[in-house]
């Protein structure tokens, strides 16, 4: 690294050389350094020579652009339409369908078979009860149990009277068991 009498180092000269050559940097000290430094003069000659060669490099003749195929020439589609189009390809659709089918089969085989009972309908001994009826029956049963706890062998008429006021529709004797409905 040489520092010449113009008070500039070669590194600083080289840093500014391209800007100076492009006319973007003005400085008498650049010219002074150039005049006094053989190494930097050679670097500047190289810069000029490379610049001349690069600007003389020809623009090459490009290939004939082939016309896109019919598939490539499809009209512009939205992302959704393209996605739909992709899914409709047999190579995508068939494996996808098979995958879904396999998944369904696996789920079916692994899950316990669910009963097709309306959750709002409970069948006890062949008689259908609604959720509301079951809730009322449970309330009646709780009341009855409280009576039993409180009075023990209190006459059954008391319990019957209370039960008659309850909302539980009494089933036909032949269709109902004696036991209270269990949920």
């Amino acid at each position, binding site marked *: 690294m040489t520092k010449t009498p113009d008070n500039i180092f070669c590194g600083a000269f080289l840093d500014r050389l391209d800007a100076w050559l*492009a006319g973007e940097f003005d400085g008498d000290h650049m010219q002074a350094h150039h005049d006094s430094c053989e190494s930097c003069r*050679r670097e500047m000659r190289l810069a000029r*020579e490379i610049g001349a060669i690069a600007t003389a490099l020809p*623009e090459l003749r490009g*290939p004939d652009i082939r016309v896109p195929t019919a598939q490539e020439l499809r009209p*512009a589609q939205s992302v959704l339409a393209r996605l739909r189009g992709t899914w409709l390809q047999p190579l995508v659709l068939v494996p996808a369908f098979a995958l879904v089918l396999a998944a369904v089969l696996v789920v079916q085989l692994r899950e316990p078979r669910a009963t097709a009972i309306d959750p709002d309908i409970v069948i006890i001994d062949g008689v259908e009860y609604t959720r509301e009826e079951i809730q009322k029956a449970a309330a009646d049963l709780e009341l009855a149990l409280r009576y039993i706890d409180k009075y023990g062998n209190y006459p059954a008429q008391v319990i019957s009277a209370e039960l008659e006021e309850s909302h539980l529709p009494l089933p036909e004797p032949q269709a109902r068991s004696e036991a209270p409905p269990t949920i």
Partner: protein
Amino acid sequence: MHRQFELAKQQYRHRLFSYAWYSLRSRADAEDIVQEAFLKFWEKRDGVQPQEVGAWLMRVTQNLIVDHVRRRKARAQWSDSEADLDQIPQEETPDMQHVGTLKRIVEHSIAQLHDPYRTTLILREIHGLQYQEIADILRVSVEHVKTDLFRGRRKLREIVSAHPLYHHDLLTP
């Protein structure tokens, strides 16, 4: 739209090919990249403003070149494609057979530059674009373009100077 595509082909295919060739020094790769760039243009044509077509194509080509170089480096197949130089048809580069050593070194060294220096230098030196045009393509400021250009020239000199075939006698006295 077909009209715009045809215009773009006529107007930019040589520039794109030159840019790709000077970056990769492989005719086959450069052709593939230009074809792909135009295919992408066709697919995205609705989103490209007519006045933006040139810059858009250059950006796409730049990305394709960068990807290509990255893949090539990943495959560790980076090589001096001197053979490709000879594949350029004679009528396209009439002085190619008489090219001086320094010119060959410079061509080779340009391809060794990293982006954005390589792109900036090719657009400025070979294609003669104005700073503002380069700034529009690369989406940077004009000052940024100048900085990259000056740094690119210096790096190019370093690569040329380090080339095994380079010696000071190659310079014009």
